[in-house]
């Protein structure tokens, strides 16, 4: 009798876990292991046979200038997106902290880009960036600044992609900080206020440490999503001009789905996974020093 109950109990656990676990294994965990395997082959997708080449794909990758360019571009893009998103997101949250007339509308406006499809808004930005007839250069001209080639030049294309990405994610960071600021206990402010602390000191000694878990979380999230940025790059620049906006992910896409070099492509994917794990591990270790829970 007792055994039957146990079987029923175990059965219901499986019943509740498997509907999510099976797709998770088939479309997440197995593909990652499979990627490791493919990265050791020279498979070209079309032919039924392939050779085992062990580390050749990785060695070829580490000898390829394109790879280092992509690595550098990924770094520039990640840092270039991360820093403004977090700093400006916090600034906006601080300004919005006290509700005022119209603060609901401001919140709505600042957050709205986040829910719009990246493809649609990237098309709009392509039009804004047009060097001859776009409004971006008209604005620069109005400010008496030199016109830029924006996405048409390898000098400025990355900047253009970063602006679109920051534009889209700024409101998201602001909302995160707003709810973190709400949770800062009021008595901490009062305590520091009694000490006659200046507002900058109060911000540095009370607010920043209190919201550090949010900052930590935002750093991780923005980093992971920067590593995976594809839509805006595909629409705005397709990795160009001359590879100036080709990130690791975009290189992976081109190798895999344009050149059908599956071995090389999965090798890039493995590098991306290792990078993510490494960066997260560094963040977690470092966070012990500056995150106060």
């Amino acid at each position, binding site marked *: 009798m007792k055994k039957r109950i146990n079987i029923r109990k175990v059965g219901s656990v499986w019943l509740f876990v498997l509907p999510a676990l099976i797709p998770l294994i088939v479309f*997440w965990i197995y*593909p990652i292991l499979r990627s490791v395997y493919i990265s050791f082959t020279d498979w070209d997708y079309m032919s039924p046979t392939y050779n085992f080449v062990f580390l050749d794909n990785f060695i070829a990758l580490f000898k390829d200038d394109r790879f280092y360019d992509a690595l550098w571009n990924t770094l520039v893009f990640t840092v270039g997106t991360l820093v403004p998103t977090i700093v400006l997101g916090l600034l906006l949250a601080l300004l919005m902290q006290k509700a005022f007339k119209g603060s609901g509308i401001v919140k709505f406006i600042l957050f709205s880009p986040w*829910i719009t499809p990246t493809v649609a808004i990237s098309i709009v930005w392509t039009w804004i960036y047009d060097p001859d007839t776009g409004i971006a250069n008209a604005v620069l001209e109005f400010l008496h600044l030199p016109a830029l080639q924006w996405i048409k030049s390898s000098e400025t294309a990355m900047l253009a992609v970063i602006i679109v990405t920051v534009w889209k994610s700024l409101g998201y960071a602001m909302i995160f900080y707003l709810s973190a600021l709400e949770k800062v206990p009021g008595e901490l402010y009062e305590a520091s206020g009694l000490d006659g602390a200046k507002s900058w000191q109060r911000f540095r000694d009370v607010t920043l440490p209190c919201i550090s878990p949010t900052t930590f979380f935002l750093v991780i999230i923005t980093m992971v999503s920067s590593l995976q940025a594809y839509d805006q790059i595909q629409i705005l620049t397709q990795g160009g001009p001359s590879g100036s906006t080709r990130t690791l992910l975009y290189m992976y896409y081109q190798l895999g789905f344009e050149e059908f070099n599956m071995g090389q492509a999965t090798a890039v994917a493995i590098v991306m996974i290792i990078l993510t794990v490494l960066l997260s591990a560094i963040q977690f270790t470092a966070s012990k020093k500056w995150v106060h829970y």
Partner: protein
Amino acid sequence: MKIKTGIQKTGKIIILLVFCVFTVFPFIWMVLSALKTKAEVMDVSAFFPAEFQWQNFYEVIFNSPLLKYVANSLYVSAFTLLIQIVTGAMIAYAIVFMNFKGKKVLFAIIMGTYMLPTAATYIPSYIILANGGLLNTYTGLIISGCVSIFGIFLLRQAFMQVPAGMIEAARIDGASHWQILWRVVCPMTKSSFITMGLMNFITCYNNYMWPSLITDTDEKMLVSQGLRKFFIEGGAYGTEWPLVMAGSAIIVLPLLILFAFTQKWFINGIGGDTGMKG
């Protein structure tokens, strides 16, 4: 002192105004460009159209396949979302309310996949769908997207607020886990379900990279891919910017309206405020 706070207040308003203009401008420019003639759109000095060219919208709505793409996306997103909610709620329920071996390992695996770059799985996932004959089918798209790790997190977070005593009481009354999940836990955590539903719907509807790899025929295209096709098609004789902008506006504006009415659920989901309100 009064002057100082006055300056501060003005400064604050100016900064917020600059950011709002910067944020809202692309949307306004999109709509304005959609209402211009082809000649006006090429002339930077013409900020406003002389006459609103509403027929640009008419043209896109009735003479382009854009609405078909919207319908495709709605169909795929609705099905994906439905399955995501069921699978997510069930596994979150198991993790929070059931005791079993390997629970910690299971949760660690789910946590780990949350951080990993999804695109790294695309090549093998593509091969799996190809082997199953599911390329260019909605079935392939839906089953490959039927688990939302974000959703599992959000629901787990909410379920942990439900007192364990309530589950035990329902068990003693003879309710099955399935009944408890949908009749006890779900009503108590309704707000998290709504948040997850909205966030995942938007993510799914806006999704581009994976669907564009899976679907390649015109009939099956989802909205982002279809819009891109519409965008690059005119490329040969110079992009028809007014029509492209009208197309983008038709995709973007309904989402902004939806968002205007559901803002609080998004903000709750992001702010991590997923307690048992509402």
